[in-house]
Structures are given as structure tokens and as C-alpha cells.
């Protein structure tokens, strides 16, 4: 079949994206990656792109084709062309080095380094590990570092220094490893601003992950373990911890959220003062609740919290903070 590859070639002199079109004769079952190789070999040796294993294993050839993120060595041209055209662009949320080659250090490797992606073995190395204990580790190890979770991340979209779902999933892999001893240090290490607590759990990462690792759920599980260790923020973002404590305390006592206390307790005194102009406007418009009554559910909800506290204390005693269900 005849198709045209319209390929991103960097920014033009006007600062706008520039594209170059390459007409190609291909078989419909040829992959997008094979098409690119064909262009490089037959038409234009200057076209830059990455590819490694050619079987969906190395994560190198992530691209956007017709505005959809794909592992380009796995996708047949015939399945994705539109009216004979394939618009080929680099992944989003990161700058490119040349053409389709993006800055992998910036999107992935520098952030992976921050989570210390190596095992720190326990002294009491277990002789045997139950299969199910390794299930979360195996799940996270499916990651091919294709970068799609980060390229779809709504936080990286506005803050490229956010650690991102790929590195957090790597952190998950070690925090949940029964042979690793450094979970509390790891969790503390990713708790500063632009780390674990900056995730908005919007499920874009899960939607973008081609390996069904569901990074969003993994990040939420990572947070739950952190909270069990008493870690709810780093040093520079303590408002997050205050917010959690106030939230949990009002639901525990009254069954639901006390927004008056939440604002005061999260902000602290100085923060509260800076909020005053907006706060007064809100009070004036009846948007700031002045009273908070317990709900009927308060007693029952409080008992659930207490029971959970007892379970957590028992788990701590057994050194099993990470595994308690």
C-alpha cells in the first residue's frame, strides 16, 4: 500500500513545528518502526529516531502516531494510517534532541536515579518468599520504561520537574519488595515537593500505560504505605501533612469533613492570614460554613478508624507496615 509519513523534524525558524513528508510503498502489516527504517535507508539518512529491540521490549521507540501514543515497533501501519497518512511526532511533556529523539534523561533517567533503583538487602534475608508477596514486584517489573505514563501526566504537563509516575512506579517496585530494607528512607526521599505528594491521581498514567501496570493505583498504594510509616510530606511541603491530619481527624470524629478546621489547620496561622481576603469574600457569599455538626455516622466511622489503628499497631509490631491489608 502507498502511505505518506509526515514526520516531525523539530522547530522551524518561525518557532513552529516543522514536518517533512515521505511517500512510502509498504505492506499494511509492516510496523511504523519498519517504515521509519525504510525512510532512513532509502530516502533520508538524516532522520533521527530511536529503536532497540523491535519487539516491544526495550521502551525505546515510543512515538505519537496520528496523535496517539504507541510503541512504534508493535503497531502495523495498516492499523493506524488515516486516509493513507501517518502523522509521526515525538512524545509530549519533554523537549526533543533531534527529530523524534526525545531527551530521555529529562523525562526518565534523572528521575529514576532519585528513587535509588537498586535493592538494599535486608540483613535477615528471607530464605523463601511466598509467591503472592512478590506479585506487586513482578507487576511493577513489567515496566519497559516506554515513558507513556509520564508523557500523559497532567502534572508534568505544567511542571516538568515533577518526579512522575514512571519513577514512582519504580519506587513502588522496591518499597513493596520483601527483601528490601529501605522502605521508610525511600518514602521519605520521594516525599519532598515535586515528589509523591504532587500526584493528582487523575488516572491518566493508568490510561496511558501499555503494560497494564496501572501506575495510578501503584502511586496510591505507595502513599498508603507512606502514611502507615507516618510520612505524609517532606520538610518543604508540610502543609500536605497538616491537611491529611486535619482531614482524617474530622472524618474520624464527625463522620465527614469539617472544612472550617481544614482550612485553618492546613494553612497554619500565617497561611490563614494570607487567605483572609478570599476567606472573607467566601463568608460574605455563604461559602464558608460557620457550623459543623457531626453526622449520624460519626460513631460507626470512628470505630472503623479505631479498628484500623489497632490493626496498624499490630502490623508495626511484626515489622509488616507495608504488607498489612
Amino acid at each position, binding site marked *: 500500500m502507498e502511505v505518506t509519513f509526515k514526520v516531525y523534524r523539530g522547530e522551524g525558524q518561525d518557532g513552529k513545528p516543522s514536518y517533512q513528508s515521505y511517500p512510502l510503498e509498504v505492506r499494511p502489516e509492516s510496523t511504523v518502526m519498519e517504515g521509519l527504517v525504510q525512510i532512513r535507508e532509502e530516502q533520508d539518512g538524516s532522520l533521527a529516531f530511536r529503536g532497540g529491540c523491535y519487539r516491544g521490549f526495550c521502551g525505546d521507540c515510543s512515538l505519537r502516531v496520528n496523535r496517539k501514543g504507541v510503541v512504534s515497533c508493535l503497531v502495523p501501519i495498516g492499523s493506524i494510517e488515516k486516509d493513507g497518512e501517518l502523522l509521526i511526532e515525538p512524545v509530549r511533556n519533554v523537549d526533543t534532541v533531534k527529530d523524534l529523539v526525545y531527551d530521555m534523561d529529562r523525562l526518565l533517567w534523572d528521575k529514576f536515579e532519585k528513587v535509588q533503583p537498586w535493592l538494599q538487602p535486608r540483613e535477615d534475608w528471607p530464605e523463601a518468599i511466598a509467591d503472592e508477596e512478590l506479585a506487586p514486584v513482578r507487576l511493577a517489573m513489567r515496566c519497559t520504561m516506554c515513558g507513556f505514563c509520564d508523557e500523559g501526566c497532567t502534572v508534568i504537563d505544567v511542571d516538568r520537574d515533577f518526579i512522575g509516575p514512571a519513577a514512582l512506579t519504580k519506587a513502588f517496585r522496591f518499597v513493596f519488595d520483601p527483601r528490601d530494607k529501605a522502605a521508610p528512607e525511600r518514602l521519605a526521599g520521594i516525599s519532598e515537593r515535586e515528589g509523591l505528594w504532587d500526584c493528582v491521581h487523575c488516572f491518566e498514567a493508568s*490510561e496511558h500505560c501499555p503494560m497494564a501496570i496501572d501506575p495510578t493505583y501503584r502511586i496510591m498504594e505507595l502513599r498508603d504505605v507512606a502514611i502507615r510509616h507516618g510520612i505524609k510530606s517532606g520538610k518543604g511541603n508540610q502543609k500536605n501533612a497538616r491537611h491529611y491530619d486535619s482531614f482524617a481527624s474530622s472524618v474520624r470524629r464527625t463522620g465527614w469533613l469539617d472544612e472550617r478546621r481544614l482550612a485553618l489547620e492546613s494553612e497554619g496561622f500565617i497561611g490563614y492570614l494570607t487567605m483572609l481576603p478570599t476567606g472573607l469574600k467566601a463568608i460574605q457569599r455563604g461559602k464558608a460554613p460557620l457550623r459543623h455538626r457531626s453526622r449520624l455516622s460519626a460513631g460507626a466511622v470512628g470505630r472503623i478508624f479505631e479498628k484500623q489503628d489497632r490493626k496498624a499497631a499490630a502490623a508495626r509490631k511484626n515489622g509488616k507496615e507495608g504488607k498489612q491489608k
Partner: protein
Amino acid sequence: MTRYAFYSGCVSKGACPELYASATKIAPQLGFELDEMTDVGCTGAGVLTQEVSDPVNARTLAKAEAMGVPMVTICSTCQGVIGQANFRLQDQKYREYINSEYLAEEGLEYKGTAEVKHLLWLLVEDFGLERLKELITNPLTGLRVSPFYGCYLRRPDEVLGNTARKRYLEQVIEALGAELVDIAGKGKCCGFPVLNANETTSMKMAAKHTGEAKDKGADCMVVPCPLCHLNLDGNQSKAAAVAKREIGLPILHLPQLVGMALGFPPEELEMRRHMVSTKAVSAKVKRVPLLT
């Protein structure tokens, strides 16, 4: 009247009372009897850990199940978080564990059959857009409206169930006679969840989506989630300052937009409570008296 187990959520009783007011105003017009659940706890909103929020949500689901009618939410965050819990509780082993550990002492049991639906889904699936059109006394002709779903009415698919639900907001806007101003950010995060951890990021997200709608000529934006409303309306001036631009986009709750088309005056929908003035919207929507 069709009866529903109504879960109001915290914010519609707190910082967004206009959502509660407008939802309970339009419901009888649509034949929805909202039987409010009072002995229920907060969903946890994605803040509390699953170990605490799953039992609390199982308790709520058990109570809805016992009422024998679908449960309805007016907050995407409530919908998403309790929907995710309900999805996990479909696992029989896990459900039995939660039942025996937490619910049994109150004499409750969750059997896994409760259905949780957002008001938006009720409008399209239970009431129907054609019937909705027949009820309109005050078509929103000429009003340019951008949809903003936020996260949980779009993702994740396994909790959403029916993926056609990802287009309901646009369909409702058009059914009400308004003009759809589509935006790329309609299914992205509003920034509210990261307000405490990183306010700058939160403000950039809020400015990006409201700014996009404004730049495309929207008169207002409609949201099905009061947390999105808090960030997009309540914090809009701060977001505009961070993004160093003007925005000034009124943000309406879903039942307010529907309510205007059904002929309710803006005062009854409590539109004066918003932080960004909604006067321009009210002025553009010429009102005819409510048919009663």
C-alpha cells in the same frame, strides 16, 4: 417520581452550598426523588488511605443496597472514590473480609450489588436527553459553554463502566440549547488535589483549562464536581495571577446550567455565591417564567 439514595458529599454542604441547592431544586422537575442518606461517612476523597476508606464506603454501599434503589452522587470525586471502592468490593474474598471485620458488628452486610451513579449519568441514562429537551422553557441559545469533567467521570474505564459516559457533558450542553465550546483540557485534572502539596502546580492547571475555554470564546464552563469548582472558581483569580493573564470565566455547577434551561431564576440556583461573577451568564440567558 423515581427514588434514589442521595449521597450529597461534604462540599455541597460546606463550601459549595449552591450545588446542593440547585441539585435539589431541579430534581423534582425531572421526577427524581432524592432520598438523602444521612447515616453515611465521607468517601475519603482520595486523601484517606484505602484501609480506612474502603470499609467506610462499603458501609455506605450496604446502606444504599438496603434501600433497594440506585445511589446518586452530585460530586465526581465522591463518584470516583466510592466507585473505585465498589469495584474492589466486587471481589468476593475482599468483600467478605470487609463485611466480617468492619460491617458485621453493626449488623450490616454489603452484597456487592449497589449501583452508584452521578447526576450527569441520571440525566442522560435514566431521564433521557429527548425528554429533557421537552422540559426546557428557557433554551440557552447563544450561551457558549465549555465542558470540564475533571478526572473521575472520565477515568478509569473499569470503574466508569460505560465509556459513552465520557461524552455526556457535551450532549447535555447541546440538549439545553447552548453552544458547545470544546476544549482539549476537558478531561484533565483541575489541580485541586495538589493544592496543599504544591500550590503553584495547582494554579497552573486551573489557569490552563479556564484560560483555554476563555481563549476559545466560552461565556462559562460547566463542572460536575464541586472540588473542580473550588479550584476553577474559588481560586481563579490566584490562578490568573500565577499565569500572569486575565481569565474571568464564570464556572457553573451542572445542575445550575440545567436549572437555567428549566426556567429557574439565577437567584434560586444561588449563582450569586460564586467567587467569579456569573452576571454576564444570567444576562445572556433570557428568562421566561417557570411553568408550574
